[in-house]
């Protein structure tokens, strides 16, 4: 029974911990369209076939992405096989190995649960001349520099953080006269890109609105707890008027907490962008959301992958996931 429960329990745990954070921070930029490789100079026999392995399908955005990739792939004449690693790095590696080694696919688009677990897979793919699209940068996989047949797609955490922090500063300048007490919602330690991202937020905030000061910090894990924690922090600092929400859960939790306390919250920014958040932006509850552009990134990644499948000996590229700032009226 334990073998049955371990992956599932990990799923549940990971879904909570990683769901919101990893999803937005890590997978946000890693929407890599499964490139339908051109059959002409494919490396493998079924070179119009692509495997897509994204983190775990229990994450709604990954589900969305899978459907999008399959649809796009079909329109380009490629079959996309979607695998579900269920947030288990071993499973991801094993499932991919089986289709790559057997030559069943000509290309694979991978959003890695744990990049370091895939270094062996990368070698196998290169040997079999199967093109790869991987999230992150070469160093994550124990490689240095660009490789033949592999393109990397990274999230620019720095750029994300900068945009989020800048917008928060803008809001403070516009609505609060440049001075405000700020609540900073952090992510859990070990979240991908945490230091880059949060560092960039703070720097940009300080640069845009020097009169703003961060007076309280909480850690975001899930929405209900975020709501409670923000409520508690508000008790200790009743004059907080601006919140850096970190992600969708954190931002929505903060809004709920302030509403419950009967207080105004004019300024909230974060990175993410699910439906509820987008609605909140329209309603004016959230000032700005830095949204990673999945659809755009998908086409860019997919097309790059198919091009690579056509010629797997050429060195790959480093892509970046496009981001967009969404504000009311945009």
């Amino acid at each position: 029974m334990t073998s049955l429960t371990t992956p599932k329990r990990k799923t549940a745990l990971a879904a909570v911990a990683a769901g919101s954070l990893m999803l937005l921070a890590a997978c946000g930029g890693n929407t890599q369209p499964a490139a339908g490789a051109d059959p002409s100079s494919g490396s493998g026999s079924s070179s119009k076939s692509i495997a897509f392995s994204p983190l775990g399908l229990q994450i709604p955005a990954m589900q969305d992405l899978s459907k999008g990739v399959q649809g796009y792939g079909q329109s380009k004449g490629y079959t996309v096989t979607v695998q579900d690693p269920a947030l288990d790095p071993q499973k991801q590696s094993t499932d991919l190995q089986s289709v790559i080694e057997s030559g069943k696919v000509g290309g694979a688009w991978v959003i890695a649960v744990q990049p370091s677990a895939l270094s062996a897979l990368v070698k196998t793919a290169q040997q079999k001349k199967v093109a790869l699209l991987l999230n992150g940068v070469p160093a994550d996989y124990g490689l240095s520099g660009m490789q033949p047949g592999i393109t990397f797609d990274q999230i620019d955490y720095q750029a994300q953080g900068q945009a989020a922090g800048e917008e928060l500063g803008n809001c403070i300048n516009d609505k609060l006269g440049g001075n405000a007490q700020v609540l900073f919602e952090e992510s859990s330690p070990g979240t991908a890109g945490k230091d880059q991202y949060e560092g960039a937020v703070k720097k940009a905030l300080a640069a845009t609105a020097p009169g703003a000061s961060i007076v309280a910090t909480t850690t975001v894990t899930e929405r209900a707890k975020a709501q409670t924690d923000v409520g508690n922090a508000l008790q200790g600092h009743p004059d907080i008027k601006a919140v850096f929400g970190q992600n969708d859960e954190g931002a929505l939790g903060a809004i709920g907490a302030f509403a419950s306390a009967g207080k105004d919250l004019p300024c909230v920014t974060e990175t993410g962008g699910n439906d509820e958040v987008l609605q909140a932006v329209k309603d004016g509850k959230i000032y700005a959301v830095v949204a990673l552009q999945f659809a755009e990134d998908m086409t860019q990644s997919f097309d790059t992958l198919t091009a690579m499948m056509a010629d797997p000996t050429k060195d790959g590229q480093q892509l970046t996931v496009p981001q967009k700032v969404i504000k009311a009226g945009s």
Partner: protein
Amino acid sequence: MTTPATTPDQAAAAASQTGAETGAETTTVPTGHEMPRTITALVFVRDRGIFILWGLLIAFFAFWCSPYFFTTDNAILVANAGALTALFAAGVGIGVMTGVLDLSLPGTAAFASCVCGWLLTHGASTWEGLAAGMVCGVVVGLVNGFIALRGFNPIIITIGTLSVLSGLAAVVAGGYTFPGLTQLEFMGTHRYFNVPAPVYVVAVVYLVGTVFLTRTRDGIRLMAVGGNAEAVRRAGIHSSRYTVLGFVISGLLAALGGLVTTAVVTEANPAASPSIIFTALTAVALAGVALTGGRGSLPRVLVGALILATISNGLTIRGIQPYWATVVTGALLLGSLLFERVIQASVSKRLMATANLSVHQKKV
């Protein structure tokens, strides 16, 4: 049949033997109705210690975090923050007290809230959605209970149902969540006389629960089954019914907890959060509820949950990292275990010295 009398009691016994043969009355014996003061005091501390602990914590934070801590607003906030934990703690607590360790709580909560969320987003009325959610809890309890009756280990069973339920919840939610459930706000963030709804829910649950467990026949039997199922069986009672009842109550409270959580954040999420069990168990353990079952009091569980919320609240106000809250809670838990052991040993020792018993012969 005479034996040399060495103690006053034995002398009385010897006298009563001969007395019986000649038809005389017995001599007086101590009635054992008086408990020595020290024992009463020790038992008081053991049973009420947690209230004292809470009082001390409040006093401490009142000074350390002034002026923000010791206000009505903050008290209400703490009560609200502890409400969710309190609901799950009630489920776990009643389960443990009745001999049932139900680990499927988070799964039941997620499943019930997703079923409710699905119904609400498909046009059902609020009451229909809530009723359906509660029914889910009862059904899960029945399933757990009946499997347990077949003799399987309840811990393994409930871990199994937890997995099943998390999966089912995700199926119901189609991989997404159900946001925008504002029709549940009346039991979420809405305030009545400035007190948020969840506090009222908790108050009702604990009141009903305490009365049920201590004053009704089924409640008393439920606790008895938790303490010694064999004894209950030998009294001619179907103890298996009560085991199932324990699971049903646990499932029902889990569902209620899930529904209130959903109401507070207006979103139904299929991700079953195992941390719920952890905090609930901590509150229950702090309350001194023995994991072997049969003993414990709901009011103490409530205070356990409130202690956790108080610590978290006080430390957050002071800007201390949340990890310290976990450290403090863990330390308190260990401390209270030690404390209880010391008191228990002390009470036993003193009891042995005072055991009073007599059986006397009547005139024939």
